[in-house]
């Protein structure tokens, strides 16, 4: 290490008689020492369990999660042989597509509308941002009562327009729809903030040029705004996909995966596999798949973000 030798000749105000070892301790040593607790935390609570989970996914585990034999790909094939898991995958795909597309479309529209700084816009922004800061558990409980059959707010409103006895959480399709709506309600405002930041990176003179050259805005949206926003959009889409795949708390509160597994998404199924079914082997296999899938998605999007980043030179 060059840093060990380099300061040896200088007359620093530090401990004059100290040898190189002590100086290392005072310099980089302190840095490594300060790094140690968080590094240990990450290794102990993130890296180790991750590696352990992947290794476990190839072993047979008993009800307490102890290894009782080698399974090869047995846990993976057990997972895919289960019709419930196939339904869960289908649900998750449908949910993710709708949740991501709707929340980002709404966020983009809101970003375009709210990007001019005015007091009204600022207030509106604060207003629509409120669902984002609300804990999902609380929000889901509120929605549960909105949607309750017989006396829920939504049910009453639907009754006024002629849809009587609406039982939104009671049917798989509409229950999944309610979960999508909750996602959009909660995350669209959050994504709006990112997209507004992206829009603000367009310089003032470019914006003025766009206003005079293209009063309707369609051409500039297609040729200027979208290309500039592309990396930011890619980032937000990745974020949205990850959040959608991670959805579990509203399911836990509102539907418990029902009715008839209609709202059972991959994260909730993972919870069920482990904590309700004691099927730790398949649970480890599913965790490994999710880990691989989501981290490669993040990596891809980061690469895309780097490559396609737009710089005003």
């Amino acid at each position, binding site marked *: 290490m060059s840093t060990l030798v380099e300061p040896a000749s200088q007359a620093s105000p530090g401990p004059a008689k100290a040898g190189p070892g002590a100086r290392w301790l005072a310099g980089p040593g302190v840095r490594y020492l300060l790094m140690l607790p968080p590094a240990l935390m990450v290794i102990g609570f993130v890296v180790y369990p991750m590696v352990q989970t992947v290794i476990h996914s190839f072993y047979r585990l008993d009800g307490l999660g102890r290894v009782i034999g080698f399974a090869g790909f047995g846990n993976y094939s057990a997972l895919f042989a289960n019709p419930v898991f196939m339904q869960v995958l289908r649900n998750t795909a449908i949910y993710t597509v709708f949740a991501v597309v709707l929340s980002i479309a709404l966020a983009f529209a809101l970003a375009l509308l709210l990007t001019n700084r005015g007091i009204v816009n600022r207030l509106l922004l604060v207003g629509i941002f409120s669902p984002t800061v609300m804990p999902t558990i609380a929000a889901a409980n509120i929605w549960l009562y909105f949607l309750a059959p*017989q*006396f829920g707010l939504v049910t009453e409103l639907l009754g006024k327009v002629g849809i009587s006895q609406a039982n939104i959480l009671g049917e798989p399709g509409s229950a999944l729809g309610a979960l999508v709506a909750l996602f959009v309600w909660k995350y669209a405002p959050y994504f709006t903030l990112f997209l507004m930041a992206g829009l603000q990176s367009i310089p003032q003179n470019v914006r003025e040029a766009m206003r005079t050259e293209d009063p309707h805005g369609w051409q500039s949206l297609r040729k200027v705004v979208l290309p500039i926003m592309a990396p930011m959009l890619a980032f937000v889409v990745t974020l949205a996909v990850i959040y959608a795949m991670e959805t579990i708390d509203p399911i836990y509160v509102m539907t418990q995966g029902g*009715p008839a597994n209609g709202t059972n998404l991959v994260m909730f199924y993972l919870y069920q596999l482990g904590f309700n079914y004691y099927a730790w082997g398949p649970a480890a296999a599913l965790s490994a798949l999710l880990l691989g899938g989501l981290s490669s998605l993040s990596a891809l999007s980061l690469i895309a973000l780097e490559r396609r980043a737009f710089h005003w030179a």
Partner: protein
Amino acid sequence: MRSTWMRVGSAMAGLALLVSGGAVASAAKAPTQLSFDFPVGVTGPLTTDMQHLVNAFNKTHPTIQVTPVFTGSYQQTVARVETDIQSGTPPTLAVMTSTSVYDMLHLNAILPLDSVAAQGDYYPALLQPEVKGHYYGIPFQRSTVVLYYNKDIFKEAGLNPNQPPKTWSDLVTDAKAIQKLGITGIEIPTDGTCYWEFAPFAIEAGQNLASNDGLHVYFNSSAAKTALNFWMDLSHKYGVEPKGILPWATVPSDFESGKVGMIVHSSGSLAAILKAANFKVGETFMPADHSKYLTDLGGGDFFLFKGASKSQQQAAIAFIKWMTSPQQAATWSKETGYVAVTPKAYQQSGMQKFTAAHPQFLIPAEQLQYAQPELATYSLSQIQDTLDAAIQSVLDGQSQVVPALNQAQQQANGILANYR
């Protein structure tokens, strides 16, 4: 000088020894700490009621200090206990569904409580089934599936408020009469663990959902098919029940606010319903198909876990005995509507006065002679979810009764094959 310091020092050391010795002595006298996990599966302020009971125990038992830990629903409690066992720190005592016994045995986690069961004067039905020659769960908050009905609505609909439906066809006739008032006839909760509300109908139609060895289920029996067809008919043929899935949590609210004439729910919800309803509440046996009034049991038992110290185990057994003694059983029953676990509870003078004023509280105990054990198997959550999903897919119109139940049976056989 030096010797003075030394004397002071030795005096200090002696003092320290005395203090620490005193601490050790008082630690030996400190009460045995006992924390126990309990779930709440019905409506009402049960956590407060539980705290009152435990406080009374702690006051009368100075050598034991019990801390109740509220652990959510039954399913959440099982998940928590299982995680604790996995991490090597099992609870000493927990209330779990009596049906958890097979999975807890499979985890090698619980101890038999045969002597408590033998001495407790419990209703025999509540101790069933005996598992592998032992009694593991001691009945505590046990319930039955009952039918609640709104007497005022019955009167309004021209029905006799003291003559609730006795048979399935009575049920349909009465529900139709109520429906004519613009009020929903009947609601049976069908979300979550709906197998429980389904079981009385299947039992009534001729067969329980499972055997008593934890290894066999009868999801596609003709009885189960008859029962599910009847459920479908209630909403689709007779139009006396809303279509789709009805939530366990809001069905009592609908009943309390007079939006529905009859509901099927746990007897453990009685106290909360009585408190909230401003009409005369009737509670009765499940209507019969072949005039047998059969129902199934539910609710929670005390379980004692391996891994606790001898003194903790003894304290836990003392606590279980106290909690299920006639006096406490009567208190818990009055506050909740759960069956008092011993017939002696109903002979308590306070309880006799109470049941004279609220005869509804006697129904679950009278029902015990007709009650069958709740669906209990190995891999219980998964087996229950299989049946729940099958029932719900039929109610939602995604599949037909016969193929749905056949598929559930096939899946359950696949799961249970690992244990046979």
